[in-house]
């Protein structure tokens, strides 16, 4: 157990989930994706969510990030009942507290790297100069200062994902939610991304929840949670 892991174990939970149920309707059928799930994630932790396809990993990540609403149960993040927020409040909350990293990077192809990273800051009251300072700092952190003016199609997959991470951290959120961040990358680029995520967790204290299929990626986390048919089982981290 590393020092950070020990610190995370001692810290209070940043995410507190109780009896969480998520059901979808598929035609006349109701599909229960999450089945009464309860889970605590401590501040500063780096958690890997694993499980087969359809086990509910991404659904859980979406619920924690306020992108979707649970059918029942409670979901608190930093003591705030996220499941009770209105759509508008959820938007503000996400902008302030959560950074998202996607498998397919989801950068806007018409914008340069720095414009992509600037996007979340457009919702703040920062002026252009302040925004560009933050953008430069985020790009420097992910090692892409020299690619600021490049469009996504001019970057490699690994570089695109770095821009995606810079966009996720530019507002300095407490929680980073990563949905298969290495899923579309080769091993070398994937390792670089995982190293970057580790650094964000170790050095900047970001709480990271990462959905992954890749056991190699899961090994880099502090804690591995397995999901199967909407139920939890915890594995070695």
């Amino acid at each position: 157990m590393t020092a950070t892991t020990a610190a995370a174990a001692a810290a209070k939970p940043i995410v507190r989930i109780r009896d969480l149920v998520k059901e979808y309707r598929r035609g006349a059928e109701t599909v229960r994706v999450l089945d009464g799930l309860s889970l605590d994630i401590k501040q500063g932790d780096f958690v890997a969510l694993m499980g087969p396809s359809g086990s509910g990993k991404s659904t859980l990540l979406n619920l924690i990030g306020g992108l979707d609403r649970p059918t029942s149960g409670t979901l608190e993040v930093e003591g705030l009942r996220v499941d009770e927020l209105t759509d508008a409040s959820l938007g503000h909350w996400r902008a302030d507290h959560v950074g998202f990293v996607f498998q397919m990077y989801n950068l806007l192809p018409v914008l340069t790297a720095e414009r992509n990273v600037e996007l979340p800051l457009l919702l703040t009251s920062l002026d252009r100069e302040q925004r560009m300072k933050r953008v430069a700092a985020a790009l420097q952190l992910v090692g892409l200062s020299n690619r600021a003016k490049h469009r996504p199609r001019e970057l490699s997959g690994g570089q695109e994902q770095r821009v995606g991470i810079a966009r996720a951290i530019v507002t300095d959120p407490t929680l980073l939610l990563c949905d298969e961040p290495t899923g579309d990358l080769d091993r070398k680029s994937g390792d670089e991304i995982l190293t970057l995520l580790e650094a964000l967790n170790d050095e900047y204290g970001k709480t990271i929840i990462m959905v992954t299929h890749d056991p190699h990626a899961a090994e880099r986390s502090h804690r591995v949670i397995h999901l199967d048919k909407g139920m939890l089982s915890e594995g070695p981290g």
Partner: protein
Amino acid sequence: MIGKYLPLLASSLRRKRLRTFFTIASILIAFLLYGLAASLQFALKSGVDVAGADRLLTMHKVSFTQLLPASYESRIKAVDGVEAVSPQTWFGAWFRDERNQFPTFPSDPEAYLKIYPEIRLSEQQKQDWFADRSGALVGRAIADLYGWKVGDQVPLKSAIWRRLDGSDTWDITVRAIYDLPEGGDTRQIVLHQEYFEEAKQQAKGLIGWYVIKISDVNRAQAIGKQIDAMFANSPAETKTSSERAMAQSFVNQIGNIGAILSAIVAAVFFTMLLVTANTMAQSVRERTSELGVLKTLGFSNGGVLGMVLGESVLVTAVGGLLGMFFAWWISVQFGPTMDQYLPGFRVPPEAFAKALVYILALGVIAGAVPAWQAMRLRIVEALRRD
């Protein structure tokens, strides 16, 4: 505040450059047509605006091409409420090129200036014109067109009237050049009726029509009726109406062209609405996942709605403003050339104001449905699509 979103909106237009170009070009042409149609209607209407309500025109009841006896003048003058009467006849004048005819009327000079007090010329030139029977009062536009100056002798040709010697050339002397208040049509020549009557070969004792100035605008209809009653059951019955009514009725006939133009422009606008709406719908459909990302980052439903609407308005604004600019440029470049046929051809200020409203309306209506769909987009579903 909105400024920081502009690069984002503008970048959306760069996504499919060719499609954006064609959409903007279509909108440009629609607004160019609108600007030119508005200029044409403005030119047609300006004649009505300057026509006096205190002036009556008495012409042959059958058609204004039928002539009236010159003897009517003294009888019309005697009608109560009539201040001045001048005969006028269509001269069919041309200079150098028969295709370029311009309005020229033999008239009674003194009566003519009483009837048209808005005509501006120096006292000296006025007196010189009165004194010279072959002298002509020439509008500034005509003088400028042919480079005529006061004192110039001009061999004016008539497409209708021959002199006693059989010639169609009427030597006149430019004795006065007149101006009119802003927007007035100065492409006209006025000759001496007396000279014309003596020198013409045919239709002696006949004139085209009478222009009458009355003292009380409110009595225009009554005076007109009285004049027409005087000549009822004669070989040359008359029809009298106010100059403004005449101009309006003339414009109403041409106005049908204006109405047709308006209908065409409306149809073009409607087509543009469909084109722009289709472009916006395609644009939104293509980047559903991007909109999902924006919402994930915290952009509100209203913000996404505003962004799609903003993009739609930006497209119509670029096309619309360029279209109006080109319409203005064409009216400035070619307006003076067209002055001879269509004075006052220019984009009126109210057309620019209306264009701004149309740009906004077109943008908002075209973007409404896609913006609404973008607003209602659920993040999880949007992120699943690509």
